[in-house]
């Protein structure tokens, strides 16, 4: 994977300038991402970035890579298709909490149980940014937005508990205000041989005054050093804490889907013989 000349973080910038509002957490998210790519020395033409729709889903536009900006909520199955079609590529899906947990919610457990080697970055601002401020599935109960003028009535999703409930093999939370740690989490996630999920706290100062750098800074805490990342029940319990913990909650060994598919192909050849299409057709005599 290493290139001849070492890639600098700025080499991963595309020619397009981010269109986010000043102060948007996605800037921090993006910068940490550049850093991680550079540290991993991923060649841009072997990197595929897949996203849905939302402010955060614009991230691929700003990265020097093969990019795919699809429709709302379908980043995961798309990314899986890319990975299975060409396992040589480093495949990363990125998007917002609405894209991921609302309209895209149905795809998550299935991506988890297939476990393809892709990394999923969710920029979690607890609000719909692009559509100008409505509740997201992870907005706290009572939050006032355009669609909840008297406060929302629903309990928020806890993305981390949910992922551990699904049995994901890598679950972490990062924070756009801690770019160094965030970079490290990206590196670990991309290196994880399977589906890796990172929930990134990434404030939307324009539409969510409840979750800003100011409110987050005193709240976030690192996951205790003695937490056993291979203990699923412990990881689940940890995810229920009220203060947002950042770091890796859970990580276990896993065989990625594309590897299991490769093995299946070999098994079919063993069982059914070398591929010969004419012979296959002829067998329908």
């Amino acid at each position: 994977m290493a290139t001849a000349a070492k890639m600098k973080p700025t080499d991963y910038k595309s020619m397009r300038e981010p269109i986010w509002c000043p102060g948007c957490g996605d800037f921090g998210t993006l910068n940490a991402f550049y850093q991680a790519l550079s540290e991993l020395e991923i060649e841009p033409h072997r990197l595929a970035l897949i996203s849905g729709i939302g402010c955060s889903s614009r991230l691929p536009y700003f990265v020097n890579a093969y990019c795919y900006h699809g429709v709302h909520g379908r980043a995961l199955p798309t990314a899986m298709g890319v990975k299975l079609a060409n396992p040589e590529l480093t495949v990363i899906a990125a998007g917002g909490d609405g894209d991921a947990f609302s309209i895209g919610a149905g795809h998550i457990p299935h991506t988890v149980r297939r476990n393809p080697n892709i990394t999923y970055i969710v920029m979690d601002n607890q609000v719909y940014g692009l559509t100008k401020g409505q509740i997201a599935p992870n907005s706290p109960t009572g939050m006032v937005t355009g669609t909840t003028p008297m406060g929302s009535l629903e309990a928020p999703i806890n993305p981390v508990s949910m992922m551990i409930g699904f049995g994901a093999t890598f679950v972490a939370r990062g924070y756009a205000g801690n770019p160094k740690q965030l970079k490290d989490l990206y590196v670990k996630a991309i290196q994880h041989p399977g589906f890796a999920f990172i929930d990134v706290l990434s404030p939307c100062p324009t539409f969510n005054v409840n979750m800003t750098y100011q409110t987050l800074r005193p709240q976030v805490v690192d996951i205790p050093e003695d937490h056993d990342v291979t203990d699923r029940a412990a990881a689940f319990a940890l995810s229920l804490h009220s203060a947002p913990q950042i770091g890796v909650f859970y990580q276990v060994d896993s065989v990625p889907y594309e590897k299991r598919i490769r093995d299946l192909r070999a098994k079919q050849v063993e069982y059914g013989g070398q591929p010969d299409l004419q012979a296959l057709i002829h067998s329908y005599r």
Partner: protein
Amino acid sequence: MSDSSVMIRIGGEGGEGVISTGELLSKAASRAGHSIMTYRIFPAEIKGGLAQFQMRLSDRSIRAIATEFDHLMAFNQEALDAFHETVADGGCIYYDPSECDLEGMEIRAETIPVPLNEIAKEHGGTNRGKNMVALGFLARIAGLDLSVTRDLLTEKFRRKGEKILAVNIACLEAGYEVGAESSNGRAVLPSPPNGDGGGENGRRTIVISGNEATALGAIAAGCRYMAGYPITPASSILETMSRHLPRFGGTVVQCEDEIAALASCLGASYAGQKAMTATSGPGLMLMGELMTLASTQELPVVVIDVQRGGPSTGLPTKQEQSDLKFAIYGSAGEVPRIIVAPASVEECFHLTARAFNLAERYQLPVIVLSDTSLAFRTETIPEPDVSQIVVENRLQPTKAELVGYQRYRDTPTGVSPVAIPGTVGGIHIAGGLEHDENGSPCYTGSNHNRMNAKRFRKLETLREDFDEWVADFEIVEDAALGIIGWGSTKGAIQEAIEMAAERGIRVSHFHPRIVSPLPEKRLRRFLEESPIRKVLVVEENFTGQFSHFLKAKFDIRPVEVLKAEGVPFNPSEIFDAIVKAEADL
């Protein structure tokens, strides 16, 4: 039914081997050089109960099903009760006397007891043995050589060991012998013209269902990624691909839903692979948003829609051609697509392969409109020769084009070279926002006009490229009537036209392979060059969908010959419409 064909029906308890008996019989007949066509009608419920198999055998090629039978083999009372009335005058019913009681039944046809169970037991067989007895019996009734059937069994049971094979063969032979006694003088087929059909020399044929042919056609065209979600009547495409594709280096994924299936196909296509999914009406509707994305991103992909009876869950195991308007117009906002419709099992193979070529050449989604009647029936078709299949691949940028590479370059054909991820210098973004030639979002009116024109221009290019191939048509000299049909109705239309010809009524026939974009030039020639005074549009739906599109484009006000009753047209129904149209001329 014309004399040279024989209709056979087998009925019995589900799981008793009715289907496998029928499948073996049809294969044997095909190998003997006959043409066969088989079909099944399933209940929408799972429940065990009655299973049945129907087949038509002929020494000539068969184009449509029939609804009256010459022979009925009833394994049990339920089958006898349900089907005895479908036997034509002069036909014959065979039944197992240990299972059936004819007392008090009013049966028109001749009845002949065949003690299947008893004979099977005599020769050491149990349940499967009984099927073999029936197989042998029917093979003789159909006038097949014993050896062809025996060879087939040998192939099939070789893996199961000597002993099982021997018992089965013994049952087969015993059945054949009984059949010889019962068959004297009865509707036996004349010898087929190409007795060596299944052999290594002569005309090579296979017996295959529309769905299997679709799957193999896809593999032949280079499809290496399939994702789908089970749905009647499309599931067996996914199942056939699962059985074979990995061996060819491909990937098959049963997804969580149709949306994920198509999304992953688009991902695979973006990564450079040929990808497809297969579904039916309800699933196709779920794919609408992503189909529109694919057209906007200009990604090749093939979507097989095996139409079934609608609306909504509708008649899920029955025949209807009612997804056409959705296939053509099922996008909010405006995008080009290509719709093709196979007219036979053979076309399920070849047209699916062509669909991939069209998708690759024009970087567009292509919908293949198959249907229930094609999906489930099996037919004798010429064995496709893999070496003759043309395979096209999407246009990739040259080295020079990779300098300052523009993914959506506006070209005279509308088609722009596309770099596959992994290509140095080809980095780009494939997006669903309106974009400029570089793929950057761009919302000006002039750019939107330009990109709309670029995308739709591909359909013009297609019309130029494929003028010769877009449709099959037969212009009959001096015909005052013309029939336009699409998809699986072709055979029935052809038979109806032949029936009309026998009555001295001349009818021309136009049957497009590409149903959208409409093959305008060809169709105009059909309408204008020949002296057609009245056009009949034949289709299996309630509202006249293809007719609607024809009326919008051409100055015709056709007679709409429609049927939406869950079963395909009988040729005689179309014939009746021809006679009426001729009388009204």
